[in-house]
C-alpha cells in the first residue's frame, strides 16, 4: 500500500468522523424544532434541507469555490477570522461535507423526533414533566437509535464524497486528498492495481458502517431488550 494511500484513508476517516459529529451537534436541536413545527413554511424548509440530495456534488463544489474565494464576502470573513483560506484546506472540505451530508443526518433525526413526539412526548407533558427533564431523560434516550442511524449514514456518505472535494480540494496530500480522489488519480493514470487495492479497503469500511447502521435501525426508538 502506498504511503499516500494510507494518508488518504486516514484523512477520509477523519473527515467523515468530524463531519458526522458536527452535523449531529447542529442537527439535533434543529430536527427537534422542525419535527414540532407545522407551519406553512414547513415544505420549504424540508425541501431546503433535502437539496444536497438532488444537487450534483460538482455543482455544490463549484458554488463553494465561489463562496470561499477571497474575492467574496464569506471568503474574506474567514480570512479575517482565521488568517487562512478555506479552499484547498481540510477545514474547507469539512464545510463542504457539512452541506453534502446534511440531509443524511437530518432526516433520521427528524423521523425519530416525529415518532417520539407523536407517541411519548405528549404523554410526558401530560404527566407534568418539565421541558428540560423531558428532553434529557426521555427524548434523548429514546432518540439513541436515530442518533446512531444519523451518525452512521452521515459517516458512510462522507466516506464516499467525491465531486465536491474534487472541485474545492486541490488534491493536496494530507489535507484534501481523500480516498475517492486518490482512487480517481490511480484510475486516471491507469494505475489499476493500486485503484483496486484502495477500492477494496473503502468498500470494506463502508460496508462495516452500513452493517452497524442496520443493527441500530431495528427500532426507530430506544427499546429495552
Amino acid at each position, binding site marked *: 500500500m502506498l504511503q499516500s494511500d494510507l494518508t488518504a484513508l486516514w484523512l477520509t476517516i477523519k473527515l467523515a468522523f468530524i463531519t458526522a459529529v458536527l452535523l449531529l451537534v447542529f442537527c439535533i436541536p434543529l430536527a427537534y424544532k422542525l419535527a414540532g413545527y407545522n407551519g406553512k413554511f414547513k415544505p420549504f424548509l424540508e425541501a431546503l434541507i433535502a437539496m444536497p440530495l438532488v444537487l450534483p456534488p460538482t455543482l455544490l463544489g463549484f458554488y463553494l*469555490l465561489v463562496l470561499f474565494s*477571497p*474575492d467574496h464576502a464569506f471568503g474574506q470573513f474567514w480570512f479575517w477570522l482565521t488568517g487562512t*483560506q478555506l*479552499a*484547498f484546506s481540510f477545514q474547507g472540505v469539512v464545510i463542504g461535507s457539512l452541506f453534502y451530508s446534511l440531509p443524511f443526518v437530518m432526516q433520521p433525526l427528524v423521523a425519530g423526533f416525529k415518532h417520539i413526539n407523536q407517541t411519548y412526548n405528549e404523554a410526558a407533558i401530560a404527566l407534568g414533566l418539565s421541558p428540560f427533564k423531558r428532553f434529557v431523560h426521555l427524548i434523548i434516550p429514546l432518540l439513541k437509535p436515530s442518533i446512531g442511524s444519523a451518525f452512521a449514514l452521515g459517516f458512510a456518505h462522507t466516506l464516499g464524497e467525491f465531486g465536491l472535494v474534487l472541485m474545492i480540494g*486541490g488534491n*493536496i496530500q494530507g489535507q484534501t486528498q481523500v480516498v475517492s480522489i486518490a482512487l480517481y488519480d490511480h484510475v*486516471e*493514470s491507469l494505475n489499476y492495481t493500486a485503484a483496486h487495492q484502495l477500492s477494496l479497503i473503502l468498500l470494506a469500511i463502508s460496508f462495516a458502517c452500513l452493517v452497524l447502521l442496520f443493527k441500530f435501525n431495528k427500532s426507530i426508538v430506544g427499546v429495552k431488550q
Partner: protein
Amino acid sequence: MSKLYNTWLGYFLCVICMLSCSVNAKETLQVAVASNFKTVLETLLKKSPLPNVDVKISAASSGVLYSQIVHGAPFDVFLSADDFRPQSLIKEGYAEQSSLITYALGELALWQPKAEKVNDKVAIANPRFSPYGRASEYYANNHFKKPINYVYGNNITHAFQFVQSGNVGVGLVAVSSLKAAYSNTQDQKYLEYTVLPTNQYPDIIQQGVIISSTKKHASAKQLMQFLMAEATQQQLIELGYRIKDNNASK
C-alpha cells in the same frame, strides 16, 4: 374515451417511429473529445460544418474516454489531450496507426490576474495524468523558487477555475482557456498573462485516432482531414494552440 386515446397514441407512436427511421442524409459520427478541446471543436465546426457529417461530441477526461473505448464504447474518433493514450490504443489494437494525427499542441501561460498575490499557492493541472500538468510542473520546477505549494486541478480547465475564482493567485493555465474567457466576457483580467517560451517545457502533444471498430471510415477521415486543414490549423492558433509542422506521429 379509451378507444380515442388508444387511437391517438397509435398515431403518435407511428410518427415517432417514422421520424427516427427517417433516412438521414447526414451520417452521424461519434467523437470522443478531451474536455478542454470540446468548446474549441464546437467553435470550429460551427464556423465550417462538415457536409454530410453530423458530429456528436462526448467530452470527458482523456483517461475516462480511453477506458471507455477499451471497454467497447461506440466511438468513431478519439481526440485526446495527450499523445500517450492514442498511442496506447494503437498498440493494443483498438485504433489505426495510419489515422494518427497531431491536431494541436497545447500552449501554457503564466496567469496572475491581480498584482498582489492572495497566497503563495500555484495552480496547475495534476501532473500524474495531465500532459498540461506535467509540462507545468516541469516549467515551475525549473523557474520558481522552491518549495512550491501546488494546488492540483484535475485537469487544466480546473486549474484555470482556481485562479479565475480568486482562490489561487497564480496558475499555469492553457492559453486557449484565457482566450475563450476573454472572448466571452471581455474582462481585462483574462489578458494579464505571459505566454511561456515553448522551449522551456515539454511539448503538450494532443493527438487523435480513428477507432478500429468504426463503421464510418469515410466520415471519420473527413473529420481528421478537416482538423489538419490549413484553415483549421490557423484558427487553432487564434484560439490559443500551437500547431505541428507535419502530420507524422511522434
